[in-house]
């Protein structure tokens, strides 16, 4: 069963094509991440799927309801937490949640009760009676997400939920996302951070210039870029230079890069040749105190996918 099925979604603003034909299927109960740089079309896509803007072309259904023809049914099942906190800064955290709860149809008493439940489980009970404008970025974000969960949605859109947050606040948001997924809510989030997509998402779509350029699990994306990367830690600069010149002409190597001081990253055409290279280096008298063979990092995948396409 699918939470989202979209076909050839397109949105243009004047001459600018924000989203240029996106196909998408999101499984119910999964965490799906849109990964891409600024201006890639992530927000536009999410806003179209959340019924906030109309696509120029294409079609989509959420939980089997047509995005455009049955937008009311769609809206009842989803919730959106945008890039900018959509809460009222002049009100307190508690008042914000009560306000939204009442507008969702809760009675005054029930709204109060729901607000305090949420404030408590989001670690905001101490700040409940303070105006939101005194909140830190992480607290705002949590309150904003809490406001989206007053009625537990079947699908939650999170647009860059951790942009601008410190590491502790970020991991708190991650906890929330995971708890939500465990409770059965489907989540579609956008992010610029590979680490975030890697940590949270079951499925990642890399989006660039309004198109999906790659899709799959984090592992699939990494292996799609091929082979493996051999990282060598060398004893000194002389050894590093030596190793570099020795490996320069090797046919089995795709690319050599200097990573950190005294470290070489060697992208291999086939992982098997790693041992061979280490033997070669040893024979040439180059000491390799440390080495590792791994898959390319998501950073490398990301850069490779979003570079000049």
């Amino acid at each position, binding site marked *: 069963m699918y939470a989202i099925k979209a076909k050839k979604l397109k949105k243009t603003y004047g001459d600018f094509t924000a989203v240029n034909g996106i196909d998408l299927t999101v499984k119910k109960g999964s965490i799906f991440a849109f990964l891409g740089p600024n201006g890639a079309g992530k927000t536009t896509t999410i806003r179209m799927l*959340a*019924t*906030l*803007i109309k696509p120029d072309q294409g079609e989509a259904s959420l939980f089997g309801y047509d995005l455009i023809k049955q937008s009311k049914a769609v*809206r*009842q099942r*989803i*919730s*959106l937490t*945008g*890039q*900018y*906190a*959509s*809460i*009222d*800064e*002049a*009100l307190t955290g508690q*008042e914000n949640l009560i*306000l*939204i709860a*009442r*507008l*969702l*149809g*809760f*009675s005054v008493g*029930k709204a109060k009760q*729901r607000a305090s*439940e*949420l404030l*408590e*489980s*989001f*670690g*905001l*009970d*101490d*700040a409940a009676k303070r*105006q939101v404008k005194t909140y830190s970025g992480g*607290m705002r974000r*949590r309150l904003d997400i809490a*406001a989206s*969960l007053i*009625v*537990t949605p079947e699908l939650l859109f999170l647009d860059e939920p951790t942009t601008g947050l410190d590491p502790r606040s970020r991991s*708190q948001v991650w*906890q*929330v996302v995971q*708890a*939500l997924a*465990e*409770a*059965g*809510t489907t989540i579609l989030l956008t992010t610029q951070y590979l680490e975030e997509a890697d940590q949270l998402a079951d499925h990642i779509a890399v989006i660039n210039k309004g198109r999906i350029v790659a899709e799959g699990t984090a592992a699939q994306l990494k292996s799609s870029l091929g082979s493996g990367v051999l990282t060598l830690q060398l004893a000194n600069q002389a050894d590093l230079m030596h190793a570099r010149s020795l490996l320069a002409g090797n046919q089995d190597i795709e690319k050599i890069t200097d990573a950190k001081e005294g470290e070489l990253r060697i992208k291999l055409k086939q992982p098997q040749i790693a041992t061979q290279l280490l033997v070669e280096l040893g024979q040439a008298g180059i000491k390799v105190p440390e080495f590792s063979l791994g898959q390319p990092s998501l950073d490398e995948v990301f850069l490779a996918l979003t570079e000049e396409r």
Partner: protein
Amino acid sequence: MKQSKINTNQLRAVLTKQERPEPPNPLYAITTFSWRALLKIKRHPEQLLDVAALPILFLLMFTYLFGGAIAGSSREYLQFILPGILVQTVTQITMYTGMDLNKDIQKGFFDRLRTLPIWLPSSLLGSLLVDSFRYLIASTVMVSFSLLLGFRPQGGVVGVISAIALILVFCFSLSWVWNTLALLMRSEQSLMMLSMMVIFPLTFLSSAFVDPTTMPTFLENVVKYNPVSILVDAVRGLMHGNVELANIGLVFLSSVIIIIIFAPLTLFLYRRRK
């Protein structure tokens, strides 16, 4: 201070609650929005100072600056100008309605509202209701103060109260103009500029300060058909006990016309706003 922490177990329990109430009826939504507007006043009581202090300042300036020159004496001019300046200051503060809406849009609060199962106009009506309360305060302060200065309305208490009621009706309709502009303009500054460009001619090119018959013919005609002039004439008539019923009818008519044009326009823009 206790370290704020996310309580994962509790969170899971809260999230598995599948309570989905029926969407609120419009009246409940309107009162909820009014509650929000009242909370904002509670947080920023200086807003009220604004609507109370500014009118007094204007009243004093106009009465004593122009009084002698225009009507021979300040006291006499006060009788003429109070209804005018009351209308002018109160219609000017209606501008803030648009500012508030614009702020909601800029801050993203508006996006949240659009995903809620509410009758959309209720958000506008809820804040208009509280705004009317602000207009009422402004009017009351001003009339009381002018009584101290020597304003003597011939229409009595009934005349003054019905005059204020008439102003509230007109201001309610004028608010829709600001809402429309708020939805059209991107930034608060540009909205402010545009609103000023509307409100100043609207209030000054009226019968609020001077008798239109003293103006050049062209201007006199402009002033005569300005809805603010119509309101000023009716308010002046009510307060001094010599109102023509037709004049009151015209105020209602112009209010209705403004609403017929701008309320649907506002709602249209509200719905299709990206």
